[in-house]
């Protein structure tokens, strides 16, 4: 069993996201450590991309801040290797296909493995295109994490059957970003997945409040939060570490004992 999957064994998992290099990598490093200290079960490290088509305005803006600050894939890989020595929480990369492809997918995955990365999430690589990435991920012991969406319907079984680590359930139509209400039928999505696989399912997109986290955790095995954290970082910049710590702690607390 992969380390990421194990992270779901101690109750509902909380999975925070951070855009690497926003506003700089030194801050990211401190934020990731504070997320781990606050009880994060898995941490998603976003490698910024110039044109992130699955992201809403908050994470788009973070990508712009990070890239204009001069962050690169190489610098992020170096940072990851550094943090790996200090924390024990499983780390996954979330980025876009061209970031891997352009670096050389195999070269990227080899370096990612050496940096201690356990999984990758590529929102612009659907099931139909994963053969280009998933086998290479496997070669380097990295899980290729698949997404299902409210529109996936009959595709869910096909995707869940081959899913690794955990199934990323996209809660809502549209792009990433906080939403006041989540209206999709999450339990129907997770039920379809559970029919063919015992893989944990974590819900992401649109979740920002402890109440939403509780609601989503009751229907799944974990909760992923991106934009709400990135918004905090946008607001507090280099001083966001303690705000992120408090936030992650409150969210983790909210989904305890569900």
């Amino acid at each position, binding site marked *: 069993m992969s380390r990421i999957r194990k992270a779901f064994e101690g109750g509902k998992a909380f999975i925070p996201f951070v855009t690497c290099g926003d506003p700089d990598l030194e801050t990211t490093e401190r934020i990731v450590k504070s997320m781990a200290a606050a009880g994060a079960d898995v941490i998603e490290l976003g490698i910024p*991309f*110039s*044109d992130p*088509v*699955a992201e*809403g*305005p908050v994470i*788009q803006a973070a990508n*712009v801040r990070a*890239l204009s600050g001069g962050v*690169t*894939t*190489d610098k992020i890989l170096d940072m990851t290797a550094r943090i790996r020595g200090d924390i024990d929480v499983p780390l996954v990369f979330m980025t*876009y*296909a*061209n*970031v891997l*492809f*352009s*670096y050389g997918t195999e070269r990227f995955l080899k370096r990612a493995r050496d940096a201690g990365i356990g999984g990758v999430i590529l*929102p*612009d*690589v*659907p*099931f*139909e*295109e994963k*053969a*280009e990435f998933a086998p290479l991920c496997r070669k380097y012991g990295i899980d290729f994490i*698949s*997404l*299902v*969406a*409210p*529109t*996936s*319907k009959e*595709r869910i079984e096909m*995707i869940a059957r081959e899913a690794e680590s955990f199934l990323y359930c*996209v809660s809502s*139509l*549209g*792009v990433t970003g906080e939403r006041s209400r989540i209206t999709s039928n999450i339990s129907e999505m997770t039920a379809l997945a559970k029919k063919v696989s015992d893989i944990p399912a974590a819900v992401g997109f649109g979740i920002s409040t402890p109440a939403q986290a509780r609601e989503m955790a009751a229907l799944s095995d974990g909760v992923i939060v991106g934009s709400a954290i990135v918004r905090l970082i946008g607001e507090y910049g280099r001083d966001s570490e303690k705000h992120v710590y408090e936030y992650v702690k409150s969210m983790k607390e909210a989904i305890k004992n569900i």
Partner: protein
Amino acid sequence: MAKGRYGIHGGQYIPETLMNAVSELEAAYDKYKNDADFNRELEALLNEYAGRPSLLYYAANMTRDLCGAKIYLKREDLNHTGSHKINNVLGQTLLAKKMGKTRVIAETGAGQHGVATATAAALMGLECEIFMGEEDTKRQALNVYRMRLLGATVHTVKSGTATLKDAVSETMREWTARMDDTHYVLGSVMGPHPFPEMVRDFQSVISKEIKEQMIKKEGRLPDAVIACVGGGSNAIGAFYHFIEDKSVRLIGCEAAGLGIDTPSTAATIATGREGIFHGMKSYFCQDEYGQIAPVYSISAGLDYPGIGPEHAYLHDIGRAEYTAITDEEAVEAFEYLSKTEGIIPAIESAHAVAYAMKLAPTMDKDKIIVINISGRGDKDCAAMARYRGEEIYE
């Protein structure tokens, strides 16, 4: 490997949320593309509404002036709405109607595709929203007004470089949020399968007509077909029925902007490399880490960092040639065609005219060149005047 490949290019690199919408589109297109009734309806729209077939005009003055190959102009600028974009838009909106969609969304660069989409939406009673980069809404203010006049809502896109690529990203995001009642009328031979194939099929009427008209006028095929290339829809339309005719040179003209050795360029084949973006694998202008480059061209319609996957393939196998034309060369050609033939071409199409001006004098007088005049230049007049230092107001 997924469907819709042209060699290694193409594919469907899109978020899972869109996969069923794209599959639904693919199934609908497969059903209707060979449907007699659908094709009859489309042909009627193209002929009765858009004004097809477009003329193949012998440019006698230009031919005489350049002292080389005979030059013909394929007059897509004479279509309703003023460019080739209407060919694809009528096909896609008719298909959207058949699919039961009530709303269409589209990106636009120069505004030609947005105007064509807003026009077809008005004709067919569809709700219409257009996404246009802020930079382009300034360069092409008249087209913004035209779209609004036609009943469309125009969204100004401020993200990224605020040009065509950002308009495409934003339209994709909008489609991800609402697809039940909405069809994305993609304007070029790009994006995920089935768009590159479908748009090419709808635009291939251009080369079908050129072939028939040329046989009628000259009794033979042309020696070269020249078209400008951004995403590449008018070029693939002009090339398609000649791909098997190896004697016909197919030449795509990219926008070099200030020059391919400067960062201010949009010439993808000349300066890009293989990548994955906007749903497809193809050539893209990008940095060493795969970040998409902020490209530049005087022409809003060619100001795009990628090229359609079928062009990438035609380049790989050497069937089509791609060359880059600078802003200055394009503006000269814009002025040249206006003065020589009394035809004001779109600044996009002027890139093709510029290359023909270089090529024709090197060819014998019994050779024949066809230039695809993909659009008319009225929309560019104010910007061209400004380029020449004359402040005029629309």
